[in-house]
């Protein structure tokens, strides 16, 4: 299968995503420049981490108007699996493809470290091979990852099971001390109502090999491959 990895000016985890999808899990991947609109027959889309358009104004605020985002939106509307890692999450929020917004980390520090993330749900194409409650040790690297949404939105996300990842201790306890940025309800990642668009602030794509300190994130990429092989989401017109 083929991944499309969108490259914005300022993306800096695009090559991590390329390496993880090709060298590590043995799939095809195409880098798609943000001015392009042809996704080249990709089966899944990754919006990578970085600082798209310098993160000027707000993180992801300019990137959401890049031409490629119309194709990403259409792909998602047709049921195709889309994931955002870090800056990719911020772009999906600004684009309105996911609900909520990111504030500055409550510490005001750029946090760059490994954290523990508990997988809440495996009923998305990006977490299908996970066990609910599974704890992954994967890195974060962000200054604006403090997830916020209005109380009624948070309630709805919780009720619909759209909270997919939470910051936790190594034992899976969602304590305040395990929350690196102040996110409401320790939220590290969410999905849309249809569940095909998933995003998280941590970087599973940078934790796919033991040599990098952890291979816990590989299951996210393996999951979407398994999901597509099972033939669940078929993108119309492709």
């Amino acid at each position, binding site marked *: 299968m083929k991944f499309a990895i969108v490259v914005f000016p300022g993306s800096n985890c695009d090559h991590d995503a390329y390496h993880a999808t090709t060298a590590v899990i043995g799939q095809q991947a195409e880098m798609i420049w943000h001015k392009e609109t042809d996704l080249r027959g990709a089966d899944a889309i990754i919006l990578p981490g970085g600082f798209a358009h310098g993160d000027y104004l707000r993180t992801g605020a300019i990137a959401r108007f890049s031409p490629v985002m119309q194709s990403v939106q259409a792909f998602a509307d047709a049921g195709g699996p889309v994931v955002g890692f870090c800056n990719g999450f911020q772009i999906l929020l600004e684009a309105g493809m996911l609900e909520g*917004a990111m*504030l500055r980390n409550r510490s005001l520090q750029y946090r760059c470290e490994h954290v523990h993330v508990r997988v809440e749900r495996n009923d998305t194409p990006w977490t299908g091979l996970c066990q609910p409650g599974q704890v992954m040790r994967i890195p974060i690297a962000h200054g604006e990852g403090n997830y*916020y949404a209005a109380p009624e939105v948070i309630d709805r996300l919780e009720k619909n099971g759209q909270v997919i990842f939470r910051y936790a201790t190594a034992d899976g306890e969602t304590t305040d001390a395990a929350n690196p940025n*102040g996110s409401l309800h320790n939220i590290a990642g969410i999905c849309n109502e249809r569940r095909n668009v998933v995003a998280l602030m941590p970087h599973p794509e940078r934790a796919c090999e033991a040599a990098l300190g952890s291979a816990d994130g590989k299951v996210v990429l393996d999951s979407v491959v398994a999901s597509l092989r099972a033939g669940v989401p078929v993108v119309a017109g492709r």
Partner: protein
Amino acid sequence: MPQTYKARVFVTLKPSVFDPQGHVIVESLHSMGYAGVADVRQGKYFELDVEAESADAARAMVSDVSNRLLANPVIESYRVDVA
């Protein structure tokens, strides 16, 4: 005839949204001895030169721009002044 207007846009976090930067600033002011500063909210300020048929048309366009790009309505509100 289109005229040139100067629009000023003030973007602030909504009152319900915690402002970590404003919080650090007010704490710093307290440690500097300014006990009288009760709260600080940090925001953004934009100046736009716009051409429009009237001040109302300029205001409408800048409001649209603010809603779509300059502010994120999930967390921020904005005020537009046109002169």
